[in-house]
Structures are given as structure tokens and as C-alpha cells.
């Protein structure tokens, strides 16, 4: 069997706050192949970023992986020590964050910060590291790299800073790049530049990308496979085509109906009613049932299992079970 590059199995991550345990991620499973672009989509509080942070083990002090395995090339990294993780971060898997303004250190030059990653994880030191840093800046499309290396983050624009972040993430040619809302803080035209750059680099370097975002447009543009999350669980997963044209979970359907698109400009949007769930007070059954228009009795009490819709599509919704059952009854 072909071994997966990364396999997240039954991941549970909780934050232990004064108000109680917040189960931010609740049994998430997914696999990532080499060179795949996987999109994780969901609204704020759906657990998408926490899933990404759990892989890197960069959770806040209150956060902890309670259960589950994260297999990287067959090895369970969730049990690794901090020291082992330091070797993993940057070298095998790196991350770029939403806000390029706050994720760069304001008191060090771009060059300092780039060479730090290079000297830590590779054999290159001194001049060689500087040369590699300049090469990386060139790779992400920054002109006059030698001048930029001596500059501080405040001297660069938002788009440039995000390019520097990408350069830093790619410094050791990781197998996996996690991009957590990489373009949310950027303007549309700059966003287009960064997305284009990420696509180009992915093709060139062949790494796998996990793209975490709430923007369905960005997801539609880039991803091979999509995971839709709500309330810390995966409600639906499949190829981009399946998710957008054949959604089989009420949340995904609602989400697609509620955003303005090219073909519903003159029609009224159909919003999802209610407001996002409170993670401190999770419902017993399906997380989405309080906002779901077609919720049934069973949705309130039982958590739906993920079912195969077809070869490239899975969804966790009781409606699919009902449909399948009714289909069988009718067939009799």
C-alpha cells in the first residue's frame, strides 16, 4: 500500500480554560498525499486553524492534543518530544500565518530572520546562508533581494511581507506547507499575486499544501480536495468538484447558497439561520442541527457518521442515511 505523507487519525484537541474544557477539534481524520493541495474550510471557531496548529504542535499553553494520532511518513509525531518537533517544524512541515505584520519580528531584519531558519535546519552557514536567503527571496518574486535582506519588516508592504513569510517557510524545502488564511489580510489584487505564487511554487517544488481558509473562492481556485469543518468535526469532504456541485451536507449546502456568486446576483441570498455554536456548550448530536432547516429527531441526539457518497466524496449527515434507506425501500 502506498504510504500517506501525512495522516491525521481521530484527532481531539481541547483547550482547558477557566470556563471549562473547549473541545476545539473533535475526532478529525484526513490523509494528505505528496503534492496534494488540501483545503480546510469553515467559519471562525470551526476548529480549522486548531487542526493545523495541532499538526505543528504550536498550540497555546492551554491547548492539548487529548486523543488521536498524527502520522508523518508512518511515524506518530503527536508523541514526539519538543526537541524532535523542532527538527520537524521548518524542515518537514512549515506554516505561514494570516497576518504577515505580526508574524515577522519587527526588531530583526528580513535577512536575520531568513538566515535563522536556514542555519538551524541546513548545513549552510554565514555567506552561504545569505546567498540562499537571497535566492529564496528571488524565488518568491521579490526584486532587489540583497537590498531587502537588510530591511526591517515595517519597510515592506503587506504583500511583500507575506512573500517573505513564504520564503521563510520554504527555506528548508519542506514536504508540507500549511497556509493558515494566507491571504485574508491582503487586498484582492495582492491576494491574486500571492495565490498565483503559491500555485507556481507548489508546481515547481512539488510539496503538499494544507490551505486553511474561510474563503470559498480561494478554495475553489486552488484545492484538489476539500474538507468542510463545523464545530470541530468534519462534516463533508471530497474533490473540489464534488463539494461545489454536489454538496451532501446541509451546512455545505447552506454555505454555498448564502454567498453571492456569479449566478445568483439577481436572486435573494438564502442565509443560514441562527448564529455559530458556542464551543463551551456543544450539542449532543450533530453540531449543525440547531441551525439546520431539515434537522430530524435523530440529529439532536446522535452524532452522524461519515458515509461514502461516491468514490471521492464523504459526508456526515443523517439525511444521507435517510435517503439511502428510502431508496432501498423504494427499490424493494
Amino acid at each position: 500500500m502506498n504510504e500517506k505523507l501525512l495522516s491525521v487519525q481521530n484527532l481531539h484537541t481541547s483547550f482547558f480554560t477557566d470556563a471549562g474544557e473547549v473541545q476545539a477539534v473533535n475526532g478529525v481524520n484526513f490523509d494528505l498525499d505528496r503534492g496534494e493541495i488540501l483545503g480546510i474550510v469553515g467559519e471562525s471557531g470551526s476548529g480549522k486553524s486548531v487542526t493545523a496548529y495541532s499538526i505543528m504542535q504550536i498550540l497555546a499553553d492551554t491547548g492539548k492534543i487529548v486523543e488521536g494520532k498524527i502520522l508523518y511518513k508512518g511515524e506518530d509525531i503527536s508523541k514526539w518530544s519538543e526537541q524532535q518537533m523542532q527538527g520537524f517544524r521548518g524542515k518537514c512541515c512549515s506554516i505561514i500565518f494570516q497576518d504577515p505584520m505580526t508574524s515577522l519580528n519587527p526588531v530583526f531584519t528580513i535577512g536575520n530572520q531568513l538566515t535563522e531558519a536556514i542555519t538551524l535546519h541546513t548545513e549552510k552557514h554565514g555567506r552561504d546562508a545569505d546567498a540562499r536567503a537571497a535566492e529564496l527571496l528571488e524565488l518568491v518574486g521579490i526584486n532587489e533581494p540583497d537590498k531587502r535582506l537588510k530591511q526591517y519588516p515595517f519597510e515592506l508592504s503587506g504583500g511583500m511581507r507575506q512573500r517573505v513569510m513564504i520564503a521563510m517557510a520554504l527555506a528548508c524545502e519542506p514536504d508540507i506547507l500549511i497556509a493558515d488564511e494566507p491571504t485574508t489580510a491582503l487586498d484582492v489584487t495582492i491576494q491574486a499575486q500571492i495565490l498565483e505564487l503559491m500555485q507556481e511554487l507548489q508546481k515547481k517544488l512539488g510539496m503538499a499544501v494544507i490551505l486553511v481558509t474561510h474563503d470559498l473562492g480561494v478554495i475553489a481556485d486552488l484545492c484538489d480536495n476539500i474538507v468542510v469543518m463545523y464545530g470541530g468535526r468534519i462534516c463533508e469532504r471530497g474533490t473540489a468538484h464534488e463539494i461545489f456541485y454536489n454538496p451532501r451536507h446541509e451546512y455545505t449546502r447552506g454555505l454555498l447558497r448564502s454567498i453571492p456568486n456569479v449566478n445568483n446576483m439577481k436572486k435573494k441570498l438564502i442565509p443560514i439561520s441562527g448564529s455559530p455554536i458556542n464551543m463551551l456548550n456543544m450539542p449532543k448530536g450533530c453540531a449543525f442541527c440547531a441551525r439546520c432547516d431539515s434537522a430530524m429527531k435523530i440529529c439532536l441526539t446522535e452524532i452522524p457518521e461519515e458515509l461514502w457518497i461516491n468514490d471521492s466524496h464523504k459526508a456526515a449527515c443523517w439525511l444521507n442515511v435517510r435517503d439511502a434507506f428510502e431508496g432501498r425501500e423504494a427499490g424493494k
Partner: protein
Amino acid sequence: MSTPLVEVKNLKMYFPVRSGFKNLLLKAVDDVSFDVGRGETLGLVGESGCGKTTVGRTLLRLYEPTAGEVRFDGELVTGKNITAMRKQMQMVFQDPYSSLDPRMTVEDIIGEPLDVHHLCSNRKERREKILELMSYVGLNAEHARRYAHEFSGGQRQRIGIARALAVDPKFIVCDEPVSALDVSIQAQVINMFEELQEKLGVAYLFIAHDLLVVHHISRRIAVMYLGRIVEIADSDELNEHPIHPYTESLLSAVPIPDPDITRARKRILLEGDVPSPLHMPTGCPFRTRCRFATEQCAQECPGLTDRGGGHFVACWNR
């Protein structure tokens, strides 16, 4: 022809900025003219720093404009009559977290404009009016005595909208009213704006950076770049036949939530970043990133010209 509801002519807003030893002028809004019809929605789009928020604020005289005039219903808006004018023109702010006073109850927040303009003669009338406004925006009567922090982002934005509606305005400036909200909540608020317009006939200046949202809600759209309006047209016309090279690349850059469409089309990428408004390029502000820039663009700034059917474009070459 009847006069438009709001007429903006050659509006300029310059901010003095000290940079080292030099005194510079930041031209946030430079020579902007447009009008908004009764019960109409005009969308105003552009990237951050292009001056769209400043246009909205200058319109309501939250800033004293450097030059230019704003007419409401044919009447000139000045510093003297602005208090009375704000009974007709209101604003909804972007951030529902900082635009509501945390020490006031919802009732007082919505009631404040009523008090300022002496619109209610007694407490009972005031209370009834507040409850009516709350029901307009989908809040329950029991919410009246709560404080802003007890509400979610979407509900707070509803409070802000109810406050703007309190004085029965004919025109509301909506400054990025949905961008701070979650995707699943945005549609609720967008729909509410549309329903209120049908019911009350209020006109909006809808400022946002999300082109799909603006296209959905607006009849006409104005595109701003570095303090100037570069194109203004009917929203469908603008989306199907953009003329200005900036509009063209802006539209091509918007990620459309539909894999087939978005992967099939070609992005027109812009080179580089937006220049600093402190050091504006000479002539056309867009020329440094424009594919079609010529000698003329560096010399002279193009004005808006009519390309037929109310489609105005400021470009020498297209």
C-alpha cells in the same frame, strides 16, 4: 429631471502629515464626484487605502472636506446645518465591536439619536419607537436592556443598523458593514439591508472591498483607486464589460466560489503594490501598474468621461 438624493461634486479631502522635517499632504480623496438616487444603492469598491471610507466620512462631515460640495436633496450640506442634515443621512460602521458604547444598553444606543434630534415627546413613545426599530432588524424586545458585549457580531451589526434607522433617514452610508462577520452571517445582514430598502425606501452608499457582495447589493458601482474614482457604471455592465484596466484586473482577481469558472478564467495580475498616497505618481495615479500606460498618462490625470449608458471611465487609452 428630478434632482438626485445625494450629489457629490469635486470632493477633496487632504490630511496634513508630518514626515520627518517635511510637511506633506495626504490626498485621501481627490476630486471625487458622483450622485446617489432615491432608494438606490451605489456600491463603492477599492482596495485598502484608496479613500473609500474617507469618502463616506467626509460626506457626513465627520471630516471637514478640503474642497468640494455635497448636496442633499438639492440643499448644500455645510458645517452649520449638518446636525439637521444628519436626520436624513446616517452611517453604519465597519466594526460592530468598537462602534457601540460598551456602557450603554441597547435601548440607550438606539434611543440616543432620538434624544439628540428630539424626536420623541415622552418616554412611552420613545420606548415604542425603539421596540419598533428593534423588530425591523430582527432583535427581540427582551434584548433592549442588555449591553453590547452580550451579543454576537451579527447581532451587534443589527444594533448599529437600528441606530442608523432611528431618525428615519433617507440615506445611509454603510462602511464595510459585513466584512467583520462570518460568512454564514453575512447573508443574513445583506438580506436585511435589501429588505429595509424595499420597506423604507432608504438609499445606501455601500462601501466594501468584497466585489461579489457589492455586486449583489448595488445597482451601480463606483471603483476607486488612490483617492479617485476610475470607473462608475451599472453593476452588471461593470462586471461584464469593465473598461478601466484597474477594474479589469480587480474583477479578474476576485476568487469566485465555483471551481469551473474560477479555474477557466485568466487572471490579469497587477505588478507591484499600490504607491503611497504621500508620494502619488504624476498624472494618472494608476499608471505605475498599468499595462497600457503612455507618455500622456504621466503628464495629465484623465477625468471621467461618458462611454454611453451611464458608464463613466477615467482613462486615456481605453
